[in-house]
Structure formats: C-alpha cells, structure tokens
C-alpha cells in the first residue's frame, strides 16, 4: 500500500490518498494519470490492469486501487 501511495504522490503530491475517495469523480485523476498509474503498477508489482478494469470505482481511492491489485494478483 505504501508503495502504491508513493506512485500516486508522484503524480499529485497535494492529495491525502488515505482519506480521498473521489479521485476520479472530482477530476483529481484524469485519463492520462490513470494510464501512468497502470504502467507504474505493472512495473513495480508485476500486475497488469486490463482495460476492462479501468472503472471509476477502482480508481476513486488508493484503497480501491490496492484491492484491485490484490484481486488481479490472485
């Protein structure tokens, strides 16, 4: 989880990722950010997030994203 927050901080360091649950809804993460996050996750966790999993509910919070990583890694 810490590593994931590190990735997110690299994009927008002014966001509290432990609290925010509207990253996509509030436009904090745009489509370019999402692709950058997916590339980093692939690189650091060796988990490929397929296009069909790119849904607002999976990217709205660091927690949701972490759960997605764990699910895909299973």
């Amino acid at each position, binding site marked *: 989880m810490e590593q994931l927050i590190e990735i997110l901080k690299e994009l927008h360091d002014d966001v509290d990722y432990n609290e925010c649950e509207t990253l996509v809804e509030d*436009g904090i993460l*745009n*489509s*370019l950010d*999402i*692709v*950058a996050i*997916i*590339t*980093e996750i*692939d*690189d650091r966790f060796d988990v*490929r*997030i*397929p*296009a*069909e999993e*790119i849904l607002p509910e999976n990217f709205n919070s660091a927690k949701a994203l972490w759960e997605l990583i764990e699910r895909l890694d299973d």
Partner: protein
Amino acid sequence: MSYTTWSFVALIFAAVLLYYLLPKRIRWTVLLCASVIFYAAGGGWYLPFIAATVITTHIAARAISKMASRAEEYISLHREDMSKEERKAYKAKEKGRRCAVLVAVLVLNFGILAVMKYTGFTLNAVNGLLSAFGRGVTVPVPDLLLPLGISFYTFRATGYIIDVYRGKTEAEKNIFRYALFVSFFPLVLQGPISRHSKLAPQLFEGNSLRRENITAGIFRILWGYFKKVAIADTALVGVRAVISGEGFTGMYALYLIIMYSVVIYGDFTGGIDITMGVARLFGIRLEENFKRPFSSRSTQEYWNRWHITMGSWFTDYLFYPMSVSKPMGRLTKRCRTRLGKGIGMRLPVYLATLITWYLTGLWHGAGWNFIVWGLINGVIILVSRELEPLYAKFHKKFPSLDTQKGAYGVFCAVRTFLLMGSVRILDCYGDVPRTFASFGSIFYRFDTWKDLFNGSIITNLGVGVWQYVFLAAATLVVFFVTRRERDELACDKLSRKPVLWAVACTALIFVIVIFGSYGIGFDSNQFIYNQF
C-alpha cells in the same frame, strides 16, 4: 426522415399512441417498427447495412457469451484438479479464442464503416499524390452514399460487443430485441452513443404511461426545436455569409468563431434535446450528452462536458485498451530506459492520446479539416498537461485566483470558449489552409475593426438587427436555464408545475413560429451531426 419534418412528428405521435395501447411485454415491438420505418424512410438501401451490423455483432456476441460460460463451467468443475498456473493458462487461452471472434467482428464492422465513409477521401488523397509526382493516371473515385447514422450505430454495436467480451453486459438472446438497441430511432441521426447496459433494460421494460414523462418529453422536444430552428438556424445565416463571402476576414473571422459556436451548440444540443424528449415520451431516460460545455474552464473539462458519450466511447474502447496494451507497455519500458523516467512515462501515453484524437477527428468526417481538428485538440490537451506544473506555481503565487469563481473563472471560461471555437472553424471552411489564413487575419487585418465600430459587421451578413437582439436574448435564456439545471433538468422541474409548464411550452411554440428559420420553400437545415 429529418427531425424538422411533419412526417417525423406524425411517426412519434402514432408510435406513442400505439406504445401505450399495447400490452407491456410487447411494447418494445412498437419501437422496433417505428425504428424500421424511420430508417427505411431515409432510403431503403440503407437497411442492408444496418442489418449486416446487427446480424454479425449479434452472432459474435452470442458466440463470445457461450464460450465464456463454457470456460467458467470447466474451471468450476476442475478447480480442484488444476493448479493456479494451469487455471491462469486455461483462462488466457480461452480469452484468446474469444478475442479472435471479437477482433473478426470489429474488423468487419469498422471495415464497412471505413469503406462507406473513407473510400472517396482516401482515393482523392491517392490521386493528389499521383498528380504531385507527375503520374498521368488517376484512380476513379466511386460516389458512395453514406448509410444513415452509420458512425453512431457502428459505435453503439461495437461498444456492445466489447462489453459482452469484457463481461460488462449480457449478450442479448433475441436478435429483434438487439436490433432495437442498435436502431432505436431517436438515436439514429446523432446519438447519443448509448451503452447497452444502460439503454436495453429501459427499452424492453414496457414502461407505464406517466404524465411526467409525457410533459417532460414535450417540453424537452420544444426546447430542442427552439435551440435548433430559432437559434442555430438564425445564426447560421451569418456564418454562411462569412464563409461564402469575399474578404470576410479579420474581425469577421472572430465573428465566425463566436457565431459558429452558437450554431453548433444550438444545432447539436438542440438535436440531442429532441432525441432525449422523444425517448422520454416512451419513458426512456437516455444518458446526457452535454453538461454546460461552454462553462468549461479548460479543454480537458470541455471534452468531459461536450458530446460526452462519444468521448467516453473513445476513452473506454480505444484510449485505455491502446494505452495499457502489451506493445504500449514495451514501448514505455524502452522509452524509460533510453529517455529517462519523466519523458519515458509520458511519451507512450501522449502517443495514444494523439492517435485517439486523430481517430476522433476522422470519425467526425472524411476530410483533412477533421483530421487537423482532432490533432489540434490532442495537442492542446497535451500542452495543457505539460503546463500543469506552471499553472500550479501560478496558483500558489496567486491563491485568490479561483478558476471556478469570480472574474478569473469567467476569464478561464471565455478563454476555453474562444480556444475551442477557433479550432471548430475548421469545420466551417472545410479547408485547412483557408481556416488558418482566416484565423491568422484576426491578428493583422485591423482595418476590419472599423466594420465592428460602424456596425457594418452587423448589416453586411444578412442577419437583421432584430435577429441579433433575438439571438442575444435567446442565448441568455439558454444560459440561465442550463445554469439552473445543475441539480435537476428544467423539463423535470416543469413537469411538476403544470401551469408553468403550459406557459413555457406555449411561449416556446410562439418563439419557434415567430423567430424560427423556416417557411414555404425553406427546408430547415439538416442537423450538422447527421452527416457524421
């Protein structure tokens, strides 16, 4: 069959009447019949094309769905006997088979779209090249008529099959029900590009007759006609005068940027209002396609508010799959190794953005102006992205400047409006060099400023002073009504207040009759997005 014909009004009236007279479970057949009539009225030869799309995507969706069910069944039966790796390998193999079916049907359907829409453009480009290299041969260019709404129904059908492949929606078992989803008549001409998971349940539910659906639908249809016939078609007179006239550059180009924005807004959002209103008469709520786009503070925001369903189609079905694909992943890694993390991370995403915008431009029309329009939009978005750190520094230094409030907010909205309007005039001229020359003239043909101050910019273009007064008043009405639609649509608010609803509808009818651009010998202009 255009929205601005009496036969369209008659079709809606008959369909609504029949829809609510029939038992609920077969009400959807009325919509299918109305859709076939609507489509056939546009020209019987169109039908085989849409039928081909319906049949091929239906068969493929059923096949993909069955393959997925079989694979799931196999795994659940053999879960105990298979290791995690074996299960992964089996799933990947099965997914590959489903992917092959998907790719085949996508190639076929986009192939039909490409042949019908882009053959002329491609062959003309080939002939241009042959002529440039001094070859004395030309390839004959066939005159292909574009099947009605092909860009919209192809996207709707291909979106559906991709969703079935991804397991996001159920494959429709009945081909006639599926045919209704693809051909639902209010959506044929200009969208929105609805998703199967959202539209299909409403189509087949057999909605009950509810007063608020009828009143909201009628108001929204009238509101749409008001925007189209009274606003867009009136402003179009001035736009056409600038495009076809000689020497209308400088301030006239600025006039064109503003007036064409009024035209396209009235035309497209008006058309979508009519679409939404017609669907609402049957109790169907379509996805909103616009959310006050001209209030956007940035290009990115504008594209989240304008033609939303098209934007989300390109994002979900093209940009994301391309950006996270294996080749793009390899490119990212290579770029990171050679160019460093910063550029390496951005380059592939930016490439995917430009390809997406190139294809968005091409989707709008077979012409260089559309391609350049798409690419400029892509470049603007990427430049904005690159400038983000600069904006952040700027806002840190001037924290009182809020993009969402006050004078600075208005400045950001006007800036975005003018920027998007400037790119949009590529659509007006249909000619790239002429558009650039016209736009550039704003900055050096200062002699045309006198036409602004002596008023000849008003009188030179065939639009009367009172028409401008009407346009200004009507634009203000639209601005204030849409501004109050943040929480709830005007049609829904009014449907709860019968007296106000009646007054608003009567007023709209009067305004359409008095100020609308129509009459004997005047065939109301086709909607701009019909041609896409």
